[in-house]
């Protein structure tokens, strides 16, 4: 994974120092296992699948505000 930091060309020592400190902070965060992260996302998805119109469509056409309305005739 290439990490290109244009600031490597900067000659400003102070800015470089700030960057190193920042990266050290980011290195020190707590991380959870990918397996657990994926399981949690998977659970969210499964719990909400029935509400996902783009996935399951509309339960009835009455629920679809974009449906073609039936035409009315004037008596």
């Amino acid at each position: 994974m290439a990490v290109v930091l244009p600031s490597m060309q900067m000659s400003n020592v102070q800015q470089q120092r700030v960057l190193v400190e920042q990266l050290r902070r980011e290195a020190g965060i707590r991380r959870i296992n990918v397996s657990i992260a994926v399981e949690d996302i998977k659970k969210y998805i499964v719990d909400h699948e029935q509400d996902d119109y783009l996935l399951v469509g509309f339960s009835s056409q009455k629920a679809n505000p974009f449906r073609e309305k039936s035409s009315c005739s004037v008596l």
Partner: protein
Amino acid sequence: MTSKDPELDKLKTELEAAIEAIKEAQKKVADADLVTVCADLQDAPRIRASCKRILKGHINKVNGVHFSGDSRHCVSGSLDGKLIIWDTWTGNKTQIIPLRSAWVMATAFAPSGNFVASGGMDNQVTIHDLNNRDSSGQAKVIREISAFEGFLSCARFLDDSRLVTGSADMKIVLWDVQAGKNLGEFHGHEGDVVTLSVAGDGGHFVTGSVDRTAKLWDVREPGSAKQTFWGHQSDVNSVCFHPSGQAFATSSEDKTTRLFDLRADQQLAEYTPPSANSAFTSCGLSRSGRLVLAGSDDNTVHVWDTMKAQHVGNLAGHESRITSLSVADSGIGFCTTSWDTTVRVWV
């Protein structure tokens, strides 16, 4: 790179060591692969959405669209110098707002539906109040902020008062637009900040930049980023939080769309179409997060199953590059905008 400055050389070594430390820590928790963990899920169906509305009214390229929190109205901004507020259900224009500058690149709807923000090459952000008219009958401008040294690329409201902006001067700023105050600046990106997405709880947001990274920020702690996400090989054009709040999707000039997880601090998946020819300009996620959508330079919206990393279709219709995509909060559908001057609604 040789340098006559030993302190700079020492810092360069420390920088490389810090990056290595991050990569090592990420590798340590990479105990599984997303597609394998999700092998037991049923395949997602082929995309069933289709274009239900073609919203015509702009007479030049449309650069941005954003849904209101009501999942019914959206705002679009075009190089014709106008914002149009649309009722997506009827296709009607509820307001047309002429802008002082035609070069609009960013548009945002406050979740309440009361305000819209816009800006672009004028290096300003302008807030219009949709419920109050000025003397000429247009939505009233309640704030103009010109404290930018580059064009405004993206903006998102946290609520009716607070707006986050990203601009080409690499700055990210939190504003109280009602009071006209700068509430804090977020620094760290090394290139134009072109996209941002706020988490559902309003406490965090992610940004994407031409520096090829995405970064996570805490609204309450301006200053430096909480996390940086590497992986893309070119500009990150769009970011979108996953509805679970635990991940976000990105799409890029590098012709891929990706999923990154916050707590594992790394990329979980990469999504490409069967023939990866075009850059992606925009992205969104469906209500459950099972589907990821990306607008492309090839004029179509690509759709993938996020968990199985499978391409489940393309939505064609636009006649030119898609510039922006916004999914309604309710998940009922999404809008896209294009250089073809139209806004399309897909349900």
